[in-house]
């Protein structure tokens, strides 16, 4: 749809009124922050137990027969994620109670947000592969609803659909990977699978499992070449971007890689794939981040960089690399959520997010500026912020990586230097320097808006000064969970004079140089971008267009709307499948002994054959229908003779209905004499003979196989004592296989709906 869509205008109008309203009243929207806050407190009570190295497990049976249970596991890794999800959820809910206050659909938004939080918590706490998958898909659905929240704009709709298709496609691969993993391990419980790493790595299915799970993780966590949906997802309201697309959902893929780390990591392919894709994503994204002029988009690309870095470090099995990943994960969630919300404040108070239009806001918004400075310093990795510890660990981890320490370290330094530059662009440029005119004249944001980002930024400082607060209680248990064995981790601000510190200095120098020259670099990147044949985003569009063309083409061929062709396709397929199967399996047999025929049988067969011949050669439709009725009645007689009264009755009633239906439409059908397709009847005859022949051969071959009565005997035995019914056919229909019957009647309803629409549609078309 294009922008001339009338709904777009009304949508914009809606937004304007919403903003006007929000200035006057905040209302009770803040109560949306209570559920996440309470959950965060509940999770915090689990900290002491987890710090002692315990894990908690909760089991609710779901489909015990298939090994699918609602099992939940709380260990260091899942608790770290759960705390981040609930805590940042509270901040984001509080923030949006201001920015979206008075929005017509505010409560719908709250519902989506909490729905997402619920799904995300389920994802990180699930201990069963299938449970994890269900929550994984729920997060995709919630993300779709949230990205498309401003659904009156075409861009939001497109971005939402793109995110859904990319992550949903990855989700399908993930499901396949999980099923393979489950069958290879013999259990769907993650806590059990984690202990059998060697068996899984040596399993014949290791490679398919690895690639399928990777496809799920990489699409969710937007690794190159699936990165393009994430910047587009910035069409969502800013608090959503802060929550889903930086702090939580996109880390779902990282979580998955960390979760399966004990079972799948340690192979060459794991090491190289994760390291390479992670490094490429990190560097590529941080370069593109510098190219953006929209603050929110710049942050989106730095999120990609973070995801790439995390993937890169999870590729390694070294303790220090894993510790670097966990610490950076926490650091990043703090500063990135804070920065996104700060950009939200800037947008809300000034009316623009373009770097070129912003400057010197610090005087008007001192608290926001302070929060931005603290978050940006953590992002750039200056001491004494937690970001510094995270960066030191990254360098130490990079040097410990077994594959290519030089390559990983170079990628890390380059990406971090660019982070320093971006931190300057996002947090320095808008607040300091010359004051620029903005669409709205800014003043400090309300309490509920700045409290969250400031709190997160201050936490980054507190944890940096006192890393002991999280190192034993969160980081060490999480590293233990990822490594699959007890690990000792200690975070410290001062690591002594060593190579990582030297690399830090190099990073700062490079970063400041990048910042000073970022305008020139941006111009250069824009020129490069113009030379490129197509971006990944455009290739996605072409892919979708191609898919649509393919769909239209095969629909025209197979669903041409001509009844004769439909029948031809169906019967030709049946005949082909039958012939090929008979030939390949060499199953055609002539039975040793044909059953005895009585005169009764022969009469019925004669009736059916006579009816069929009459149908073909009948001169009028009425005669043909009557003859076809004879065939149907003959078949019903066969059911009667062989003791299937239910089927016989059904057959008779259906025959009756068919006659009525034909009688109803008879007047509208063209006369047989003027049939334009008369010449094609010879092909129809050949096809009919082939189908009849194939079915005959199959039935004769079946006679050669002894009848297996196991199933029949089972139902005969169980029907009365377990289902209290003597009529086995009906008992099977409504009790033993009730789910199948339910599916069938659902199909009947859908078919009726389709027919109804077709009939009414034709009528309308004719009236016009």
């Amino acid at each position, binding site marked *: 749809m294009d922008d001339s869509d009338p709904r777009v205008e009304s949508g914009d109008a809606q937004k304007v009124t919403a903003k006007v309203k929000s200035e006057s009243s905040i209302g009770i929207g803040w109560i949306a922050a209570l559920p996440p806050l309470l959950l965060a407190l509940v999770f915090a009570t689990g900290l002491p137990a987890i710090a002692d190295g315990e894990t908690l497990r909760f089991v609710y049976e779901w489909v015990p027969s298939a090994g699918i249970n609602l099992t939940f596991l709380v260990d260091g890794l899942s608790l770290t994620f759960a705390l981040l999800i609930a805590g940042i959820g509270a901040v984001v809910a509080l923030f949006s109670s201001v920015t979206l206050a008075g929005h017509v659909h505010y409560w719908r938004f709250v519902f989506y947000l909490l729905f997402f939080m619920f799904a995300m918590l389920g994802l990180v706490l699930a201990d069963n592969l299938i449970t994890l998958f269900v929550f994984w898909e729920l997060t995709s659905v919630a993300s779709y609803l949230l990205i498309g929240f401003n659904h009156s704009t075409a861009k939001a709709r497109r971005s939402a659909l793109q995110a859904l298709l990319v992550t949903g496609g990855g989700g399908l691969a993930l499901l396949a990977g999980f099923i393979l993993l489950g069958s290879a391990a013999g259990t769907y419980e993650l806590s059990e699978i984690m202990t059998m790493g060697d068996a899984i790595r040596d399993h014949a299915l290791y490679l398919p499992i690895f690639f399928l799970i990777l496809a799920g993780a990489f699409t969710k966590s937007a690794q190159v070449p699936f990165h393009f949906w994430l910047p587009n997802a910035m069409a969502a309201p800013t608090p959503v971007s802060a929550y889903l697309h930086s702090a939580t959902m996109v880390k779902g893929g990282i979580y998955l890689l960390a979760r399966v780390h004990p079972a799948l990591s340690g192979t060459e392919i794991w090491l190289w794939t994760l390291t390479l894709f992670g490094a490429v994503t990190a560097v590529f994204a941080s370069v593109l981040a510098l190219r953006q002029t929209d603050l929110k988009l710049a942050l989106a690309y730095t999120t990609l960089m973070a995801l790439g870095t995390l993937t890169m470090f999870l590729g390694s099995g070294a303790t220090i690399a894993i510790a670097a990943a966990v610490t950076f994960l926490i650091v990043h969630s703090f500063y990135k959520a804070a920065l996104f919300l700060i950009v939200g404040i800037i947008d809300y108070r000034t009316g623009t997010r373009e770097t070129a239009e912003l400057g010197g806001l610090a005087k008007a918004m001192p608290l926001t500026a302070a929060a931005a400075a603290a978050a940006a310093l953590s992002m750039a990795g200056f001491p004494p912020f937690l970001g510094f510890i995270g960066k030191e660990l990254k360098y130490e981890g990079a040097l410990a990586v077994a594959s290519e320490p030089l390559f990983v370290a170079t990628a890390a330094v380059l990406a971090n230097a660019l982070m320093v530059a971006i931190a300057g662009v996002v947090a320095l440029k808008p607040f300091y320097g010359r004051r620029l005119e903005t669409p709205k004249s800014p003043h400090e944001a309300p309490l509920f808006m700045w409290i969250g980002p400031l709190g997160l930024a201050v936490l980054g400082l507190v944890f940096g000064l006192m890393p002991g607060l999280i190192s034993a209680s969160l980081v060490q248990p999480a590293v233990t969970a990822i490594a699959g064995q007890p690990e000792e981790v200690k975070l410290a601000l001062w690591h002594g004079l060593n190579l990582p510190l030297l690399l830090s200095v190099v990073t700062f120098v490079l970063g400041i140089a990048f910042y000073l020259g970022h305008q020139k670099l941006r111009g250069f990147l824009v020129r490069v971008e113009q030379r490129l044949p197509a971006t990944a985003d455009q290739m996605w569009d072409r892919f979708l267009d191609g898919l649509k063309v393919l769909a239209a083409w095969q629909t025209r061929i197979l669903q041409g709307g001509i009844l004769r062709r439909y029948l031809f396709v169906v019967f030709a397929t049946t005949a082909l499948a039958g012939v090929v199967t008979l030939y390949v399996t060499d199953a055609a047999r002539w039975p040793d002994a044909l059953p005895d025929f009585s005169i009764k049988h022969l009469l019925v067969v004669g009736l059916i054959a006579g009816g069929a011949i009459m149908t073909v050669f009948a001169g009028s439709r009425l005669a043909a229908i009557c003859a076809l009725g004879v065939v149907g009645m003959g078949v019903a007689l066969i059911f009667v003779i062989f003791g299937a009264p239910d089927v016989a009755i059904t057959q008779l009633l259906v025959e009756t209905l068919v006659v009525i239906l034909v009688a109803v439409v008879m007047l509208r059908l063209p006369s047989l004499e003027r049939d334009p397709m008369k010449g094609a009847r010879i092909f129809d005859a050949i096809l009919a003979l082939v189908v009849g022949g194939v079915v005959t051969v199959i039935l004769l071959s079946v006679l050669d196989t002894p009848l297996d009565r196991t199933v029949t005997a089972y139902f005969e035995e169980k029907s009365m004592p377990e289902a209290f019914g003597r*009529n086995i056919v009906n008992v099977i229909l409504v009790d033993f296989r*009730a789910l199948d019957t339910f599916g069938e009647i659902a199909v009947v309803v859908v078919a009726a709906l389709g027919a109804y629409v077709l009939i009414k549609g034709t009528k309308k078309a004719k009236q016009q």
Partner: protein
Amino acid sequence: MNSLILSAATRILVALMLVFSVYMLLRGHNEPGGGFIGGLLATIGIVLYAIAHGSAAARKALRLDPLTIAMGGLGIALLAGVLAVLFGDPFFSGQWSFPFAEGGDKGFPISTVLLFDIGVYLVVVGAVLAIVLGLEEEV
């Protein structure tokens, strides 16, 4: 169709067929019959009525739109499955109750299985009538 004989006979026939269809539905668990057969019988009865008196009269006699009946049937069938879950069994396990049961006599059995069969009956009636009546009106 303007036929005195047809419309006079229809009055009795339709009533008989509808009663018989319910009979077939109820006896289905032990004798030939069931929701599908019962539903087909009822449908044919109503179609007969529509042929004799016109589809508008048939719609009026039904009181509900055929598609509503079909949807309702699907809902009832689903309810039969959900009830099993509420009683703590897997989806669609038959739930039985035997009031007035004495010794070998099973009394007056009530079950979700019958509820499910009633759903099937309504789906068949609604779905087929939606198509047939729709076609009739179109012609």
